[in-house]
């Protein structure tokens, strides 16, 4: 059959601010998050946790819990049929306590009961006696005792090089929490044949699946992990929390089991951003050329491995920032202690290092009596330069100089003459005397790797099907809120010229891994897979039918429609599946050298703060940024990532800190762990540099992490400028400003 008609002009393609398909249900309140799920005959699970940072369990009697009417099961490590430990890279954390508890909040037993109240009562009824052990909580002591997860010693260039001007500093960053608003939660449903389906909010369903199947001792196809609605992640959902527990309870009871962590449990139940201690020495020539950086970075990984080895590697590799330097000696140490386990959080090691290297660059500029941005521009690393630590040559784009120059040229805001108390550091508490408000401006620049590094086999799968009504994309990639779902739609629309694109998040049995939603990787990895699959599918279909164009109407040849989508009945022809990899990376040699990373992004931030110098209060007025994004795929979503990332960086700069006292978290709730609110939110002006990545759909780079990295030191620098105080630790406390 042959038709003559108008071709489709597709809307919502790459470069547009396409709408999120999940936006309407989310504003209506009927988007199903993992904590909203239920099933007929469902039980509720709960977790008994250690009140001690380090103790031996001398008695555990759960008979009183089982005696409570409505309690169906109490499980301990003895009830784990398969591998009794779990973990991503290293399986070292007991599924339930193995007789020793090694951190505050470590799970000891799990229960299932008819309702949540009964489950909580059962937890309280379990009798546990402990012999308390001395917790190891000082990472420096851990370092001395060689209680570490990983050490790196990077020596690059001539170690005898010395500069004419030297600055040294010691810096600390506190433990930050991702605090996704959606609590850890899930629903496990037994299939009646020894298998189980788990519906859960996670960043990486296939990695969860691997660990679940191992601990359950079931065949791979007997456990299926389904992505449920995810209420934010930021790294907190990369590790297993309640996944194995839920599946154990469901298989043990033969009934669906739901579990939802309370906020306090959530703080205990997921990893945090590593606290750091950093010693730095920068040496430069009088002309401002950075010639040597020495540093020791000590991060505290807590009790179990999680992703700590990769985090300390990142901190160490990025210890110098986006600058050339001919001589480097950087030691990275990841301590193993009895503090709460730390792991992935947005920025992944680069955040801590950036606070160190950027404060050092400001100190160096002061010592040289040069403009701090001029110093950075003079040493800016770009394509063809080598990373000062790993000696990897920068391939593709890295517009370090441009992001700094463009940020420098952005207009500064006028003095704030608004009368509303929200514009004063003391806010509506009306504590601030305007005579004591000082304004400061500070700058920082960051460098981050994109996607997984160090020879990890990083791949993602995607399947695309042309249907009579449009296109279906199937993936196991986690949409955590960042907007990957929209990016996938936009890429397919642009390639296939079809507007109606449905993205379906399928379970682990239906497709291979998409990898983790982390490391700023899904736009380049799943986006790249979708681009490859759509392109190959289009070419195959056109080749089969002898067409020269394809759109929502069908296949075209020389301006005439020759086959409609409805007539394309060959399902095999209309489906394409890809397994997509980024170019391989290398493992580091003994000096920490090698082509370890596949791509990089730089960002520059400028913060403007008003400081109440009498009370030590800070209002972050605005944070402006220029970010290297490769190509803007969705401007509105990109601004959303940047503003949200900056807010988390501002949070670390001025308020967010998990207070850990001898291993015990003292502020595991939203009353005492302060999150930035509307009253704390700075204005943000964001500009983008579009220099295409050598690897990324349409030249795009991942954009999620850079906003969180240099925003923190920029705010700290602004406070330093306003007060003249050293500001060597974040979050900055009133005491650090007032100097009592």
């Amino acid at each position: 059959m042959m038709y003559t008609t108008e071709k489709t002009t597709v809307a919502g393609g790459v470069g547009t601010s396409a709408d999120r398909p999940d936006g309407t249900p989310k504003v209506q309140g009927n988007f199903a998050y993992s904590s909203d799920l239920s099933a007929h005959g469902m039980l509720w699970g709960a977790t008994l946790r250690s009140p001690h940072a380090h103790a031996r369990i001398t008695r555990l009697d759960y008979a009183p819990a089982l005696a409570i009417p409505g309690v169906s099961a109490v499980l301990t490590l003895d009830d784990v049929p398969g591998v009794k430990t779990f973990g991503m890279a290293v399986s070292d954390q007991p599924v339930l306590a193995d007789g020793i508890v090694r951190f505050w909040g470590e799970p000891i037993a799990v229960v299932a009961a008819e309702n949540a109240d009964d489950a909580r009562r059962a937890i309280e009824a379990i009798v546990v006696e402990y012999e308390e052990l001395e917790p190891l909580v000082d990472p420096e002591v851990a370092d001395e005792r060689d209680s570490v997860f990983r050490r790196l010693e990077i020596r690059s260039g001539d170690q005898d090089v010395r500069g004419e001007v030297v600055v040294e500093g010691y810096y600390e960053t506190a433990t930050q929490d991702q605090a996704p608003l959606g609590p850890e939660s899930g629903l496990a449903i037994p299939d009646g044949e020894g298998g189980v389906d788990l519906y859960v909010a996670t960043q990486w369903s296939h990695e969860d699946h691997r660990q679940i199947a191992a601990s359950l001792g079931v065949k791979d196809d007997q456990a299926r992990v389904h992505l449920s609605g995810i209420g934010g992640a930021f790294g907190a959902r990369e590790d297993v929390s309640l996944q194995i527990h839920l599946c154990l309870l469901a298989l043990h009871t033969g009934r669906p089991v739901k579990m939802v962590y309370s906020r306090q449990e959530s703080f205990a139940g997921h990893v945090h951003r590593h606290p750091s201690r950093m010693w730095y020495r920068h040496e430069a020539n009088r002309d401002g050329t950075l010639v040597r950086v020495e540093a020791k970075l000590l991060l505290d990984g807590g009790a179990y491995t999680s992703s700590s080895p990769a985090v300390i590697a990142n901190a160490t590799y990025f210890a110098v920032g986006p600058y050339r330097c001919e001589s480097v000696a950087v030691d990275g140490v990841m301590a193993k202690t009895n503090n709460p386990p730390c792991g992935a959080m947005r920025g992944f090691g680069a955040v801590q290092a950036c606070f160190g290297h950027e404060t050092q660059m400001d100190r160096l500029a002061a010592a040289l009596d040069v403009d701090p941005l001029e110093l950075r521009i003079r040493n800016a690393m770009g394509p063809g330069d080598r990373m000062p630590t790993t000696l990897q040559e920068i391939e593709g784009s890295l517009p370090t100089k441009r992001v700094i120059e463009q940020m420098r040229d952005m207009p500064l805001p006028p003095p704030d003459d608004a009368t509303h108390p929200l514009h004063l550091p003391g806010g509506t508490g009306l504590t601030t005397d305007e005579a004591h408000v000082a304004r400061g401006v500070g700058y920082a620049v960051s460098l981050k790797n994109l996607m997984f590094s160090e020879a990890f086999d990083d791949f993602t799968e995607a399947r695309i099907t042309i249907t009579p009504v449009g296109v279906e994309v199937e993936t196991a990639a986690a949409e955590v809120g960042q907007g990957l779902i929209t990016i996938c739609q936009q890429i397919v629309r642009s390639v296939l010229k079809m507007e109606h694109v449905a993205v379906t998040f399928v379970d682990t049995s239906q497709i291979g891994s998409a990898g983790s939603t982390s490391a700023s990787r899904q736009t380049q990895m799943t986006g790249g897979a979708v681009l490859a699959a759509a392109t190959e599918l289009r070419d195959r279909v056109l080749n089969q039918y002898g067409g020269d164009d394809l759109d929502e109407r069908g296949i075209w040849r020389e301006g005439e429609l020759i086959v409609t989508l409805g007539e394309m009945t060959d399902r095999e022809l209309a489906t394409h599946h890809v397994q997509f990899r980024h170019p391989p990376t290398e493992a580091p040699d003994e000096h920490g050298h090698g082509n370890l990373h596949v791509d990089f992004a730089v960002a520059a931030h400028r913060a403007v703060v008003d400081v109440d110098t009498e009370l030590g209060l800070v209002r972050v007025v605005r944070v402006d940024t220029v970010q290297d994004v490769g190509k803007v795929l969705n401007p509105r979503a990109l601004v959303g990532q940047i503003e949200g990332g900056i807010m988390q960086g501002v949070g670390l700069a001025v308020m967010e800190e998990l207070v850990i006292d001898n291993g015990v978290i003292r502020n595991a709730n939203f009353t005492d762990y302060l999150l930035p609110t509307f009253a704390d939110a700075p204005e943000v002006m964001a500009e983008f540099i579009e220099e295409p990545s050598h690897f990324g759909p349409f030249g795009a780079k991942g954009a999620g992490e850079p906003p969180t990295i240099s925003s923190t030191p920029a705010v700290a620098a602004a406070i330093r400028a306003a007060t003249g105080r050293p500001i060597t630790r974040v979050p900055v406390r009133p005491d650090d400003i007032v100097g009592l």
Partner: protein
Amino acid sequence: MRITITINGIDTEADIRGPESLLTLLRDELALPGSKNACEQGECGSCSVVLDGDVVCSCLVMAADAHGSTVRTVEGYGDHEVLHPVQEAMLDSGAVQCGFCTPGFVVAAAELFDTNPSPTSDEIREALAGNVCRCTGYGAILRGLEDLSANNAIAGDQTP
């Protein structure tokens, strides 16, 4: 104990066990999971509902105390055909990412605009300072509601 609440215009009877919150009642007993359970301590606003005309954190209200009250949850704004102007404004500006805080923002913002159709930026910030968003940094939420405020001001000027 049996209680009666008017929820989103519908008279609803419920049996309560005793100490549970209005949030638990809505989510677990009445199949209204739009109100979210993020902190259950009254700090984040994700569970915001309107109780007899006031925006409250439903996690801090005993279900028993809501007996005889009128409650409006996020499910009570807009319908299948037409969204509430606040919902439209938030979608247009990209104010929704993970969306977990969104129901609370919709409820709090809708009540603000109900009493003040053209709030200033500072009034928007202050009215929503009890709602935590972890994804957006608040910029897109502010822009959406500022646009709605501006449109309302124009519409108000044109009203004879």
